[in-house]
């Protein structure tokens, strides 16, 4: 029997999203009892990977807490929708990488947490090649002329 986990599904799975697109989907809590849940946080965020220390920017954040009277039912799938921002784009650089993801974090009793995460791409920026590009068409003109 598998332990508690969260399964995330995007409405248009596998597609590359563009700024201004709506990201929507569902999350399901598996093997989690309702009485065990204290709170649930849903975030759409970007984070960095690579050589540098990790940075994070949260675009959409939603928190449900049983202490605040919110009803969290693990038997029913939760839904989310958010309009994606203009930046930053997903990027696969040499020492800096930018990843976008939807993350659901469920806080259980006795300080336990269960996290589910699903990556998606924002924009079509290709992987950094690190090569010198061939000269682009340059029109040169002396200033005096």
């Amino acid at each position, binding site marked *: 029997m598998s332990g508690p986990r969260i399964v995330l599904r995007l409405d248009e799975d596998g597609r590359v999203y*563009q*700024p*201004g697109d709506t990201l929507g989907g569902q999350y399901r809590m598996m093997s989690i009892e309702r009485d065990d849940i204290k709170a649930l*946080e849903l*975030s759409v*965020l*970007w984070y*960095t990977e*690579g*050589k*540098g*220390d*990790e*940075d*994070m*920017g*949260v*675009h959409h*954040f939603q*928190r449900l807490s049983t202490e605040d009277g919110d009803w969290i039912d693990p038997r029913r799938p939760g839904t989310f929708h958010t309009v994606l*921002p*203009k*930046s*930053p*784009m997903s*990027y696969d*650089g*040499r*020492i*800096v990488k*930018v990843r976008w993801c939807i*993350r659901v*974090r469920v806080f259980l009793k*006795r*300080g*336990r*947490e269960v996290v589910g995460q699903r990556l998606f791409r*924002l*924009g*079509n*920026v*290709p992987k*950094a*090649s*690190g*090569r*010198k*590009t061939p*000269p*682009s*068409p*340059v*029109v*040169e*003109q*002396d*200033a*005096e002329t």
Partner: protein
Amino acid sequence: MARTFRYFEKKRRHRRTISRTLVIVGEILFFTVFLLGGIGGLVLLYFTVVVPQWQANTEFVAHRCTVLDKRIGEKESDEGTLYRPEIQVEYTINEERFVVWTYDIWTFDPTGGYSSGKEEKERILEGFHQSVTYPCWYDPQDFTRVVLVRNSRWWLGVLFILPIAFILIGSARLIYLLFSVGKSAERRSAFVQKAANLATFDTPTKPNSEYPAIPGGLTLIDSPGTTLTYRLPISSTPNWIMGSIVVASLIWNGIVAWLMVIAIRGHLRGEHDWSLTLFALSFAVAGGVLIVYAVRHAMVTTGIGPTFLEISEQPLRPGREYRLFVSQTGRLRLRRFDISLVCEEEATFRHGTDTRKESCRVSEHPVFERDDFEVLRGEPFEVHCDLRLPEDVMHSFKSAHNEINWRFVVRGTVSGWPDFERSFPVLVYPHENGNGEA
């Protein structure tokens, strides 16, 4: 069964991140000590600096006393001999006679109120004469504490800066840490972003709210050009760099000269200190390198005139065309002169207790190049050129520890001179229509 507490969390390549809980507990302990140290220092200063002055100035009772003797009190310290005026006075309270050495309230201070400057203390003593009666003030709680002068050393208030700084830093960090406890990284980040967005003031690096994680770049568009719309700022002023190198060279070589003088004097006296001589010589080699570097930089800064770069539009967008104007002044024969638009990644990371920065050039787009030509004094080399930013490039990006920066790099190879390279930062935004598609 999973452990509820782990000393180490996930391993990032060769670096292992320590448990966040452990870090928070350690930080809370450290800053609690910081805060308590500040509070303790403040209380100590209050009772040793403020209270004695206040008591002497407000609570001591006016009286009269007769001067019996006077002298300069001395005390040896690391800074040399310190002095204070001491005057022996006689006075009677409730028919009881007291004879006390005093001057001001600091005479009764544990540190003794000593300071440098013997002449100043002698001048004070000259104002008091033996067998003459003067006004004085005594402590109604302790008749042996009497002062001839009631004054306030308000400059001692400077001492309060240190404990207050400890209290401010300690309490601010503790508030932040206590706020962080039990909150997820996403919740903290969302809160910090919300607070940053509420800030009403703009800074040059504050991200544009429409384009998160892209620097605002206020400084890049505040200088109009003479030929095109914007004159691009140079990334670092050559004069400022040259000044820093010259100052560093002067300080270093001043130390070298001082060491050499000591070593040579020793040799002349017949006291051969070879370890000092070798030490001074190794310093001199580094000093020589610094001089060569300073001279080389001075030649480039003063001999090769300033470079001006202007652009038709800012920020840049992928797939768009721009006009560029470059002006190179000076009197030089250029073997090669080229301009390219480069993109660099920059990562900041902690390695042990050090903070390190690493950068990596990921793309370079040649914009202009010309070989073998001459720039005459009073006739700067000026040229217009067009460039098209490729469709699929990454935009400028800036977060706390990671950056993607774009800049024009102007490089020159000059006959008989060191090569030079000058950078002009620019901003690249994503496609204007919000579509990131190529």
